């Protein structure tokens, strides 16, 4: 036997990345805009999706893929009750969705009828960041009660974002959340990141988000996405 060192230099997520690219192609061919929505548990992902459906649902058809670690259908049931197609993906204990699970979810949605797909990733600030799903953008919801130090503690997830939502701004008077400190950390990781402070509870600040997402839906419809 002889020992030999063989160079490899291959990205560990290369298989996932290839599958993500196929998902993106499928979405593009159906002119559907897709969002990978990430956040810690309790940041308000489902409320945010419901608010988006409530405000855009009369003009656009929105499909939702719900990622959960266990077969609980609470979130998916809420989306169905709002009149939109929802698919539940049970990760079997895994802390994140990956491109293969996303592909399963897309296969169960009526893509030809849809304008927007929102993927509610598993509540977690570490793992989902690493796996490209093949959506067009990554959106993170940070909420005021989580604290202003999250960009410093979980830098990975802020790197690949297109949009940051700061939810529960209605709680600001009651919580020591230093917005400048928070935003400085975000700026280090993702300069110029599009940020929408809002409250899903009161509806304050929602319009700016809705305007942005509507522009993306229309851009991909007209082939400028």
């Amino acid at each position, binding site marked *: *036997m*002889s*020992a*030999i*060192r*063989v*160079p*490899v*230099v*291959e*990205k*560990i*997520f*290369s*298989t*996932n990345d290839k599958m993500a690219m196929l998902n993106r192609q499928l979405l593009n061919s159906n002119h559907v805009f897709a969002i990978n929505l990430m956040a810690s548990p309790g940041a308000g992902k489902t409320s945010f999706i419901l608010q988006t459906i409530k405000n855009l649902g009369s003009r656009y058809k929105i499909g939702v893929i719900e990622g959960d670690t266990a077969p609980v259908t609470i979130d998916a049931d809420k989306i169905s009750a709002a009149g939109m197609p929802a698919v539940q993906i049970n990760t079997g204990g*895994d*802390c*994140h969705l*990956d491109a293969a699970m996303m592909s399963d979810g897309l296969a169960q949605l009526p893509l030809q009828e849809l304008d927007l797909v929102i993927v509610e990733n598993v509540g977690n600030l*570490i*793992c989902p*960041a*690493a*796996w490209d799903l093949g959506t067009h953008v990554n959106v993170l919801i940070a909420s005021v009660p989580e604290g202003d130090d999250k*960009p*410093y*503690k979980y*830098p*990975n997830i802020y*790197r690949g974002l297109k949009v940051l939502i700061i939810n529960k701004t209605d709680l600001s008077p009651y919580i020591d959340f230093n917005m400048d400190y928070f935003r*400085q*950390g975000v*700026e*280090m*990781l993702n300069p110029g990141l599009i940020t929408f402070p809002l409250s899903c509870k009161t509806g304050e600040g929602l319009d700016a988000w809705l305007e942005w997402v509507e522009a993306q839906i229309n851009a991909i419809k007209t082939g400028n996405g």
Partner: protein
Amino acid sequence: MHELSVTENILNIVLSNAAQSNAAKVTDVYLVIGRLSSIVDDSVQFYWDFVSENSICAGSKLHFDRKPAVLKCLDCDEEYTIESDLLPCPSCHSYRTNILSGEEFYVDSIEIEKELENTI
């Protein structure tokens, strides 16, 4: 905990590269992991032993080359590294920085053994 799925990805990459080199056995796997990439704990070795036990990688050792994040201050040009939490520039305390590296996450190389050619 996504160690299991990460480990399975590593195994697929190692097996396909080992096959291309006609390896009889893989003894060592060298990984490069940046501070700003996915978090992978040393416990991955445990998963590795498990997923690789029926392959030519059985008994092989994972080596982690952990790279710190390297940032450059846009105000004073200082370059500095981050091992754990994100920090502003240590010289001028600016938050205006450019991230130079730290997102590496790949299989760098493998060490293999080949059966000697039977020339007799």
